[in-house]
């Protein structure tokens, strides 16, 4: 049985934050979940995927976040407890659905996970999604710890049903990727079948209906505001007159800092766990007890702005600070020492000097950036494209996936990236206004997610570029989730369709389509050259399964290669490919036989034919 289905309330389990969230949802009787994977939210979905295979929980990997939200919105409006899981930028994709779903509301509870990523450990921006609460009018719940992440989930579902609105559940990387001991609660029975009651004058959002629904939404916000004021997740601690208002992980850093600085008698902490609508009454009462107030929150001054406005309404003039050059930054994530220092500074507390070691004398260390795996087919494709485009002035728009790493030297294949699918759309613009040859890269999952509309645009408006679709049969970057092009028998699952990218591209009217096997370097270079010569939109589909994935499926791999004595030490292999299986030993190139997947790409490009399969070694 899946460990998150263990029905032993009161027992303790070591859980990753994302697992705790999934467990909380199971305890809340979650029956339906849809997602598009994205770090740091991916493990939540992975657990649902596994649970769905051994229970009546319905789970799907949807094409993108917008679709996932629509899927979940329908289930929730049929009365089924549903969830939609995405990373923070995913909510941008789903925003169109979100904004009007807020007007329509739900019947069964719907919780939308937005996993924010301060510091951008694995994201393209660090937007603060609490503002989506404000923008849409929906309630926002934010846990401060792993245990609380689990506890708040049933609360969020109840809240959603009470307000008949979706609830935004905002986490940050340090919640999703922290691990702690969690006490299990009771599992509520899943109700998986729903029924939809027709009510077009409340469901079909033509202007006349929406005008009415907006009134309902505003009333709901007022109701939510009252609930927020009395929520157990908005609480105060301490009786001092140094006020601290905090949320999320900042709260635990504040708790530690107040103890470390011996300020427990002097401070009064307000922890905000229900952050939209902000608990106005609670904050106003809190402010009246404080001489000065520090707002501690990662990201934007979301609470700080609200608190200052509340103070103004009450005519309170004590100093209220948060973000500022001398205090907290809007950049990156916080850490305990930084929070301690700012608290000490703001409240004039004695502050023990930090004990860091003197780092002088330490030599500059070689960087260790992440790299495409040994034998990754993307490396072969990038190499082939680079060769085929030799002599051309190129622009390489790229997209989001493992292959984004191709922008690093020595491959250097990636010039522009803003969001999922942007490789295709931006290629249209670049090719129109420059004389460069535009060659863009997109992975299979990203192509389905949001590459297709860009390609439709390119064909319709007759743009001129080559799109290389890197079809490695999985969503590799986020942990090998399926996508609509994947053969689900790899997961031992049946009953799924499968969409062949080549067919889609053909159907869209692309006139020049080639499928290459990237490990065959010479052939690939020739085929790509032809595609580059085509005037109009050409598509190259590079088809080869992700090496790491194929290893995990225990598919047979090639024999490892080694460098024979024929090697003249040109190092083309090392300098052009950057396969991590290479290293230098006594100034000679060496291949690590454990890492080498036997893709043979280096052997094909060695001018001396010095790289040979290990079985031939004399």
């Amino acid at each position, binding site marked *: 049985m899946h460990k998150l289905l263990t029905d032993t309330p009161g027992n303790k389990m070591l859980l990753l934050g994302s697992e705790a969230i999934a467990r909380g949802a199971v305890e809340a009787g979650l029956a339906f979940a849809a997602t598009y994977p994205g770090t740091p939210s991916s493990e939540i979905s992975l657990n649902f995927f596994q649970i769905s295979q051994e229970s009546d929980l319905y789970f799907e990997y949807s094409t993108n976040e917008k679709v996932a939200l629509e899927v979940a919105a329908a289930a929730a409006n049929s009365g089924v407890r549903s969830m939609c899981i995405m990373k923070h930028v995913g909510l941008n994709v789903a925003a169109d659905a979100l904004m009007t779903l807020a007007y329509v509301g739900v019947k069964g509870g719907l919780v939308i996970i937005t996993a924010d990523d301060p510091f951008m450990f694995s994201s393209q921006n660090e937007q603060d999604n609490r503002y989506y609460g404000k923008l849409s009018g929906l309630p926002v719940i934010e846990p401060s710890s*792993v245990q609380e992440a689990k506890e708040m989930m049933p609360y969020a579902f109840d809240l959603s049903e009470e307000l008949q609105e979706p609830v935004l559940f905002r986490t940050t990387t340090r919640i999703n*990727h*922290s691990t*702690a001991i969690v006490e299990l609660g009771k599992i509520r029975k899943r109700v998986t079948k729903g029924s939809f009651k027709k009510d077009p004058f409340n469901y079909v959002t033509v202007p006349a209906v929406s005008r009415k629904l907006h009134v309902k939404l505003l009333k709901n916000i007022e109701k939510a505001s009252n609930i927020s004021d009395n929520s157990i997740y908005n609480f105060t601690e301490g009786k001092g007159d140094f006020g601290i208002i905090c949320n999320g*992980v900042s709260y635990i850093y504040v708790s530690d800092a107040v103890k470390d600085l011996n300020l427990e008698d002097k401070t009064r902490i307000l922890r905000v766990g229900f952050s939209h609508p902000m608990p106005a009454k609670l904050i106003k009462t809190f402010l009246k007890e404080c001489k000065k107030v520090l707002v501690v929150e990662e990201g934007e001054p979301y609470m700080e702005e609200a608190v200052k406005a509340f103070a103004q309404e009450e005519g309170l003039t004590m100093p209220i600070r948060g973000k500022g050059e001398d205090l907290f930054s809007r950049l990156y994530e916080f850490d305990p020492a930084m929070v301690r220092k700012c608290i000490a500074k703001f409240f004039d507390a004695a502050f023990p000097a930090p*004990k860091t*070691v003197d780092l002088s004398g330490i030599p500059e260390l*070689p*960087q260790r950036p992440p790299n495409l795996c040994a034998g990754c087919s993307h490396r072969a494709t990038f190499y082939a494209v680079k060769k085929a485009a030799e002599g051309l002035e190129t622009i390489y728009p790229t997209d989001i996936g493992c292959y984004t790493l191709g922008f690093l030297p020595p491959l250097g294949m990636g010039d522009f990236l803003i969001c999922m699918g942007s490789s295709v759309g931006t290629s249209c613009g670049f090719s129109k206004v420059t004389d460069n040859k535009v060659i863009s890269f997109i992975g299979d999952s990203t192509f389905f997610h949001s590459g297709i509309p860009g390609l439709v645009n390119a064909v319709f408006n007759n743009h001129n570029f080559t799109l290389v679709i890197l079809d490695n049969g999985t969503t590799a970057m986020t942990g090998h989730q399926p996508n609509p092009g994947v053969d689900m028998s790899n997961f031992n699952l049946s009953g799924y369709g499968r969409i062949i990218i080549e067919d889609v591209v053909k159907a869209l009217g692309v006139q020049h389509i080639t499928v290459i096997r990237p490990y065959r370097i010479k052939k690939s270079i020739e085929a790509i050259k032809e595609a580059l010569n085509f005037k109009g939109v050409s598509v190259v589909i590079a088809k080869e399964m992700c090496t790491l994935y194929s290893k995990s499926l225990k598919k047979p791999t090639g024999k490892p290669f080694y460098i024979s004595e024929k090697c003249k030490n040109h190092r083309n292999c090392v300098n052009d490919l*950057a396969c991590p299986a290479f290293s230098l030993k006594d100034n000679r190139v060496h291949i690590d036989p454990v890492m080498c997947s036997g893709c043979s790409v280096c052997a094909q490009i060695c001018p001396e034919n010095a790289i040979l399969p290990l079985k031939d070694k004399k």
Partner: protein
Amino acid sequence: MKTTRLIIVAVGGQGNLLASRILGEASLLSGIPIRMSEIHGMAQRGGVVESALVFGEAESTIISDGEADVLVGFEPSETLRALNKCNSGTTVITNLSPLPPFTVAIGKGVYPDLGLLQELIREKTKRLIAFDATALAKEAGNVMSVNMVLLGALLQTDILPLSADNVKEAIKVRTGKFAESNIRAFELGFSSAKLS
């Protein structure tokens, strides 16, 4: 209960997350409060994986610069890179078997001299335990058990509020068919830390 802060740094694929998980399970077994966090976004792509483990009463799951009581490095240059987490009272345990990053092969960096590396760490911290954990893992019969060797050395120092027996128990529960070689690796690490 006193708070003890441990940082583990490794290269993706060295089994850092499993080592942390085992310490977590061992804490659960012995009723020690534990909180940990990890950065593992690109672990599978050969980047650095850092785990922070906080034993005892503190609420935070991450460890600021200068605040680690123990630093365990599975790869020598990564141990040195994490020295910012240490203070003069920190105990450092490091594997001495290098995994040079790819940037060295393409001439974009120089791998530090291992003698100098040990000298620097020794000079700036309380104690350095350094040995070839990879060789011991091989001796234990499983190259992949570098993580267990280093756990053994860590438990020998007695800095964590955990007993070696609890950790061995967790290794048995978590690592199934590899348990035997993993325990051997743990014990080799334990005795080798005694000697250094």
